[in-house]
């Protein structure tokens, strides 16, 4: 009789068990050494998980590489990786978790500027140093926080660099701009627009789209009537890939340009063949250009079974900078475990760190003096695209 009542209950129980089973906890011994944890926050699930996962794996590889050096001093370094889901609320909640864990002395963090900005307020209160591999919004470091550093370039450098290339090299005269209304997308699009105007290009449209939608035909129809030479998109690949695809379907043959948000293998996956002729500016360099980078890509592939993404090497270098700062702090502290404040100062003081993809010297705001912007072009429908130009500050 009661069988029918039991079915929903059973369903709920099975679901609950599934959820609990999914959250298996990690544990590992520290064999008598002092544990130091490096946090990592990036989107491991969600629309930009490809990029976020690359950052985490890069950081993991860096820690593995230097484990032996720290073991000699009597320390074990562990990675505490959290998923910020690309969501500011989740980022701040995770920041509290990291801040309350006394073993966490610094973190590699944040792909999205929108997440990094509120989370860094928490880090600042707790003297927890953050080194970001990827947040490009100007306001991230412009607030002058002593804990916030980044090794990539800023939007007020990336956007204009893209505009210079579009107007001077690609000879675009009429440009149609689409942006995704996020802090990142609209910030980048504005920087691009202002510089392009300055160079004398005609901005024939500046339109917004909604993140999460799939149909952008309306905006693209509007763009097509204006007959632009170039379409610029400020946003991330989930929408960017579709805009590229739908614009090509409507017969747009000119170049389409975007920022580092399109710098992912998923752009190619989504857009398919339409991706040919797409240009993008990225703050991440092509690792396959240097010997060091090739060795890194090989090691990465061996360890994780995945190809390097644009931000893999940046995750590696961000963690590398942290570890260098940490080592300096340990040495300054007579081989004892340093405080967060000491680590924070040591990281900011890092000069001429030579990573796999970029050199790092922080200025007094935490920006990297050696950050560069790279221009890429998809000549074939495959990732990575071909590097066309390299622009220094």
């Amino acid at each position, binding site marked *: 009789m009661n069988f029918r009542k039991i079915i929903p209950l059973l369903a709920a129980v099975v679901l609950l068990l599934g959820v609990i089973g999914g959250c298996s906890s990690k544990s590992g011994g520290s064999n008598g050494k002092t544990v130091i944890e490096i946090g990592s926050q990036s989107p491991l*699930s969600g629309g930009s998980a490809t990029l976020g996962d690359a950052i985490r794996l890069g950081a993991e590889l860096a820690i593995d590489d230097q484990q032996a050096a720290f073991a000699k001093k009597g320390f074990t370094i562990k990675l505490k990786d959290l998923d910020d889901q690309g969501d500011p609320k989740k980022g701040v909640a995770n920041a509290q978790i990291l801040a309350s864990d006394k073993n966490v002395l610094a973190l590699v963090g944040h792909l999205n500027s929108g997440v990094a900005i509120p989370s860094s307020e928490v880090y600042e209160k707790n003297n927890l140093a953050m080194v970001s591999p990827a947040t490009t919004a100007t306001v991230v470091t412009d607030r002058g926080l002593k804990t916030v550093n980044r090794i990539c370039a800023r939007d007020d450098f990336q956007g204009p660099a893209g505009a210079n290339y579009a107007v001077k090299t690609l000879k675009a005269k009429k440009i149609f701009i689409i942006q995704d209304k996020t802090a990142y997308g609209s910030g980048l699009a504005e920087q691009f627009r202002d510089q392009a105007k300055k160079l004398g290009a005609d901005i024939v449209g500046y339109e*917004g789209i909604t993140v999460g939608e799939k149909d952008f035909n309306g905006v693209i*129809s509007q763009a097509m*009537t204006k007959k632009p030479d170039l379409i610029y998109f400020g946003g991330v690949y989930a929408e960017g890939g579709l805009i590229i695809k739908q614009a090509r379907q*409507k017969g747009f043959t000119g170049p389409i340009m975007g920022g580092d948000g399109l710098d992912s293998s998923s752009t190619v996956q989504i857009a398919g063949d339409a991706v040919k002729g797409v240009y993008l500016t990225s703050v991440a360099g092509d690792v396959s250009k240097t010997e060091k980078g090739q060795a890194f890509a090989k090691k990465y592939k061996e360890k994780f079974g995945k190809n390097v993404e644009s931000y893999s090497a940046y995750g590696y270098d961000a963690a590398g900078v942290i570890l260098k700062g940490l080592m300096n702090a340990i040495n300054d502290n007579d081989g004892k475990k340093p405080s967060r404040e000491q680590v924070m100062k040591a990281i900011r003081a890092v000069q001429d760190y030579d990573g796999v993809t970029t050199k790092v010297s922080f200025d007094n705001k935490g920006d990297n003096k050696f950050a560069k912007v790279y221009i890429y072009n998809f000549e074939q429908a495959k990732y990575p695209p071909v590097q066309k130009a390299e622009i220094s500050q």
Partner: protein
Amino acid sequence: MLAHILQNLPQVLIDGLTLGVVYAVVAIGYTMVYGILELINFAHGDVFMTGAFMGAVVLFIMMGLGFLSAMPALIVFLIVIVIAAIATGLLGVGIERVAYRPLRRKNAPKLIALITSIGISFVLEDAVRFIAELKTGNYIVTAPSMFNHKFNIDIHHVIPYFNNATFQGSFLVVLIVTIVMLVSLDLFVNKTKWGMAMRAVAQDRDTASLMTINVNRVISVTFFIGSALGGATGVLFMIQYGTIDPYIGFILGIKAFTAAVLGGIGNIRGAMFGGVMLGLLEMFAAANLSIITHGAMGAEYKDVFAFIILILVLIFKPEGLFGKAVVEKV
């Protein structure tokens, strides 16, 4: 200004129609369940999404077995859409069985069922997301492109005010399949015994049960049909846009629900009309809003524009456009 809008019109109509028919079929799922249970089934948008993913799974399996190259694309597509529709239909029946029927038996307030449907919606989203990202950690699934033959309507030669319009083969597929679905549903509800039973249950559940109609079975059939249509539309969506993720059901579900309200909720033909109208309005706004307002409002306000129209309609006709014209609710 008018010249600009006119030039664009053929293309806007084509794109708007594609989006509109998708809204229309999903709206039917909302309106059928509302008609029969007076329940707004918020999980329906995610049933649509699950259908898209099921279609993707079937498509990938068939690709793995080499069917895609061996068979004409149209037959592969028909197999995919039928399997996905049946699977989502059964999912819909399962949801009704597990989540709504126990509540109904206990005479729980309607609000409880509504909250339950929101819960189901979250469960579906996260379950699909979990499965989709199991392998790669990336839940955006890109389907192999089908029907990408490009058509060009040379309307500019016939009527020089218009620009030429282009569309892909998938547009025709979406349009034809949805029209077939809409017409056969209309025939089913109005001409068959089951349809009559559904209309009877919608009018008065207790009296219908006195007339030897098995009310629970009719409700199951309603959920099956609504969900199967939603799932089939999910497959169409995947074919048309190429990319799906577990959250496509949310925005689209809300808009389809709006379309159902616009047409008069509970009325199937109203939902069809409301969906097509909403799609056209939205596409029109996205293409022309900044031209109309001289750049003061960009394409990002397209939803605002569409919803203002909705509010205006509801002020003057609170029962929706078709709310009174047809008495029956299903």
